[in-house]
């Protein structure tokens, strides 16, 4: 029962997110809106109930199962994108290399700056 009660809370937040999306014509998915609302409500409440913890752990532990049907599509629909493989491969490999480099350099730089400022104070 705790799991189902927690699941109901998750479903209600998801439905709330979907309702807001449709109501305000938002380009963001109902799941993401529900997640933001969930995080905000937990910050207000200050703690996670046992029901919610049980249900969310159960769902998160089977995330791989939930995304599998989407991955299967790669093998059945890939031929649609033949002729664009070079663009896709370059975007994924070079793009990821550059974005990892950017993340590391920016965060390292800001950490160093804020450490310097602290030592100057």
């Amino acid at each position, binding site marked *: 029962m705790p799991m189902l009660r927690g699941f109901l809370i998750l479903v209600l937040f998801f439905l709330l997110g979907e309702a807001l999306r449709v109501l305000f014509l938002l380009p963001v*998915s109902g799941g993401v809106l529900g997640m933001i609302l969930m995080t905000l409500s937990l*910050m207000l409440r200050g703690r996670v109930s046992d029901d919610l913890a049980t249900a969310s752990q159960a769902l998160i532990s089977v995330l791989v199962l939930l*995304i599998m049907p989407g991955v299967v599509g790669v093998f059945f629909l890939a031929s649609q994108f033949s002729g*664009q493989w070079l663009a896709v491969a370059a975007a994924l*490999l070079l793009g990821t290399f550059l974005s990892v480099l950017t*993340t590391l350099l920016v965060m390292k730089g800001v950490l160093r700056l804020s450490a310097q400022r602290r030592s100057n104070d």
Partner: protein
Amino acid sequence: MTELVSRFIAIPDLLAASPILAIGLTLTAFFVGNWLFARIGKPLWMPPVLLSAVILSAVIAVLSIDYVRYQEGALWITVLLGPATVALGIPLYQQIHHIRALWLPIVVTLPLAATMAAVYAVVIAWALGATPEVLASLAPKSVTAPIAIGITEQLGGSVALMMGGLLITGVVATLFVDLLAKWLPVEDERILGFALGLNGHAIGTARAFEISHTAGAFSSLGMGLTGVFTALILPLVFRL
């Protein structure tokens, strides 16, 4: 006798009329994939989701089940992605105290790096002549899968292509973080964890937890914040 054989051959097709076959096949491939993943020593370049999906695709092809029909049945599973995305708000809330400790580097790095992760990929693919559908499928490549599926649907991309790109991005982001950590060098586990989660979503986070618990916590935070930020910004940018 031949009648029995022909009826035997028709079994997968007849059972595929109900969603329960798709559910049974997906669950079986999930457990076999996880078991095989543990047996081959949990390699970073072969995430369990890819292993399970390869097995599942092979079974669907061998039994010659119609792919569209499979996806109709699998809707009983994928519909749970909505509440599962909401559930990601709970670990995000539990990591939020890290933001208080390091808010300045996070507030500066996150919007910039999460935006550039999408911009680099889209610009490179666009320069090499990719179609708008492919660009929309590549843009959320650093976002965790449940959120990325929602983004791609909003942008009008292909979920299948996006999932392929997502898996490759996760694996190569993990390799590049290890490589660049030595080159630059970066030793701070908080930076490495954050970079792994921001660029390599759940696959990067799995690697971060191998480095240390701190790296794992920062990776979860980076993954969660990137997901939220990208989901909010990308559809607005794509509208223009």
